[in-house]
């Protein structure tokens, strides 16, 4: 039933994206040309990477507001490493970015787990701290394109089978996380913790530790995205991806991840991100002011939540009916 519900919710969202694309195509057929769809997917890849990490966190009844700041700090650090050691292989740089992001995610997770501070407060705090650290280490200065090594900048653009590595990275992360969520004890624990923390405790699941790992996953993905972002745009400064955490949460909400925890899927987060990505890329093409983009994104969030709320209400009625029969 849950599986069917999620599937139907995902199908619904997929339908919404298809309708959106059809509407755009009716006026601008070029938008749905394969090369442009690849470009839209590539452009949405950072959002996908962050949204699937956020999804795990939200699933465990938490929220991670520090992802964009984590991304920016990691991006600045790897950019400065690249300036200092231009010869360092890209593989090492990527590993460093993931490691740094992981450490920041673990810091969030430890504060939530060991000190019991509400996640929204912890990550609001660390968000500001991370941005502050960028300012301290960079002195407020930018790292510009000409300071970065060619190899550093080339990786996300390098194409393989017609897709840039940025897109491939997102696809790989989606596959790995899908397996983690559906086929490992950690994934199962995340659903259990979000669905009913008390019950999870009684079955021997450590709620705090599960939340810690959720933050760690979110941090690792944010760190990875930090490198990809900075190398793709070939610039690093204090305010990159400023406010992006809200897009990430929005993608999750649109993707049917229950903000109360326990319900959601990696696929849903991906579709939520793609929905926002299509809108963001299509509006300039159809000549709509970018201001409308905000309004449309906002409306999409509310509609998604309303649809999900209605779905769970219907479920409530079914429970009552079956209870009636049982009594």
């Amino acid at each position, binding site marked *: 039933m849950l599986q069917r519900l999620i599937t139907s919710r995902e199908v619904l969202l997929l339908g919404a994206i298809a309708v959106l694309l059809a509407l755009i195509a009716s006026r601008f057929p070029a938008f749905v040309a394969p090369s442009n769809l690849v470009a839209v997917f590539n452009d949405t890849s950072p959002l996908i990477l962050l949204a699937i990490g956020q999804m795990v966190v939200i699933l465990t009844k938490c929220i991670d507001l520090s992802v964009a700041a984590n991304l920016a700090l990691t991006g600045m650090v790897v950019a400065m490493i690249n300036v200092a050691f231009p010869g360092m292989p890209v593989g090492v740089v990527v590993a460093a970015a993931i490691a740094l992001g992981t450490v920041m995610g673990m810091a969030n997770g430890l504060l939530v787990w060991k000190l019991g501070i509400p996640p929204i407060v912890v990550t609001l705090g660390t968000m500001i701290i991370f941005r502050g650290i960028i300012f301290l280490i960079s002195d407020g200065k930018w790292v510009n394109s000409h300071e970065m090594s060619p190899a550093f900048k080339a990786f996300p653009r390098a194409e393989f089978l017609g897709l840039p590595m940025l897109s491939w990275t997102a696809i790989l992360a989606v596959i790995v996380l899908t397996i983690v969520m559906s086929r490992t004890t950690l994934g*199962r624990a995340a659903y259990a913790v979000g669905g009913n923390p008390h019950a999870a405790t009684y*079955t021997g699941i450590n709620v705090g530790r599960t939340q810690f790992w959720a933050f760690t996953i979110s941090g690792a993905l944010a760190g990875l995205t930090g490198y990809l972002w900075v190398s793709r745009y070939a610039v690093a400064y204090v305010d990159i991806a400023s406010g992006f955490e809200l897009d990430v949460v929005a993608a999750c909400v649109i993707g049917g991840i229950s903000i109360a925890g326990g319900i959601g899927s990696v696929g849903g987060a991906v579709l939520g991100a793609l929905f926002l990505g299509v809108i963001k890329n299509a509006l300039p093409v159809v000549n709509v002011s970018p201001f409308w983009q905000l309004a449309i994104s906002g409306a999409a969030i509310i509609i998604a939540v309303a649809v999900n709320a209605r779905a769970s209400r219907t479920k409530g009625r079914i429970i009552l009916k079956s209870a009636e029969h049982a009594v």
Partner: protein
Amino acid sequence: MLMHTQTDAAAATAPILALDGITKTFPGVKALDGVSLRLFPGQVTALVGENGAGKSTVVKTLTGIYQPDGGDILLDGAATRFATPQDAAKVGITAIHQETVLFDELSVAENIFIGHAPRGKFGLIDWTTMQRRATEILRSIGAQIDPGHKLRDLGIANKHLVAIARALSIDARVVIMDEPTAALSHKEIQELYELVETLKAQGKAILFISHKFDEIFRIADRYTVFRDGQFVGDGLIDDVTESELVKMMVGRDVSQVFPQRESHIGDEVLQVVGYDHPTEFADIGFTLRRGEILGFYGLVGAGRSEFMQALFGITKPSKGVTKIDGMIRIIRSPADAIIHGVVYVPEDRGKQGAITALPIFQNVTLPSLGRTSHRGFLRLAEEFSLAREYTQRLDLRAASLDTDVGNLSGGNQQKVVIAKWLATQPKVIILDEPTKGIDIGSKAAVHEFMAELAAQGLAVIMVSSEIPEILGMSDRVIVMREGRIATELAGEDLTPETLVRHAAGI
């Protein structure tokens, strides 16, 4: 077997407030079944009954929180209804609850007058009048409290006095006291008695709910007994003895059928020594053998669930040793307990039992994931076969094991929770109020099943507040009172009267 003692000639006055044939049904449970209750001016009526007799429901009905499904509420002889708690407050009905419902961050005066503060010009709060009247009321009940202090700074006893002052500030005619002495010291209780005398002298009708027989006989004028949501009898306290009251509380005309068991009690499997907790329980020790059902009886708040949670590793006792099969086992978390073969089926199923958003098979395997996974990776085929095995044993009928637990009936959800624990292959299973809030048919099924578990050699601890269940199922009963073991009963000593006496401390 109604025992309506007609002594109204003695109490010539008419009741201020009366309930007549009140019925209140919740899904699957009849909380009140045609109960009657009369409250007379200047008299204290004690409402007596076991846990689950319907006392709290009556209080909520009287104060407008619940609407009765049938029957009449008579105020000065005229039928009335309280659609909201405000309606009840308006006619002067006020309740002082077990846990005082007050506001820690507000001052004493504000707490007394919240919702009906004296108003001055422009409808603004008249602070001077409020302060003065608060001082008057506090003085009238002999409370030495500065109305300007924040409530947070007061002790529990003084908070109670504030609650009482609040009750008086609305010109209460009916004061309901729900276990008012539970948190008070001996001296404070004496002061409360004096206060009750003052209220009586002012002609107020008092409904006094208590488990403690000594205080009922000390201050009540009348009694009313409920059992299982039904009216059993009422009358004057002077016409009744303690043992007659106990009989009325526990006597049963409907005899529940419990499975016939032949206990095959085996080796000792669990030994608990010297469990202490700074605030909740002390000096808990007992042994448990294979094939035995050990009942834990006590009043609500006697510390039974708190101890069980410590035994299961949810909370940390200050000291205590657990031996399983003769080996000392350190249990720091539920995961440790499950590994060593101790499982706990908690009382509140909705909150602590099943994860309604997950399918049946995932719920069943949740505590056994260690066995159905390899290096953190799940083995779905093993999960399904484990879930199938245990749901079949419990005769759980569902379209598929993929069905969300949230879509199952209460009885089937209960089966999922039990299947989940059995799948861990435990040695000791702790069932906390296993049949609370489920219908008679499901109850019988749970009892059958419990007997079967014991027959298979499992050791069962059953925490229950239902005397018939305790008597019908247990080989041995430990009675807890105020965080300590009051006594251990078995065989002929195991009677409703002895249980109630030890639990209430009389």
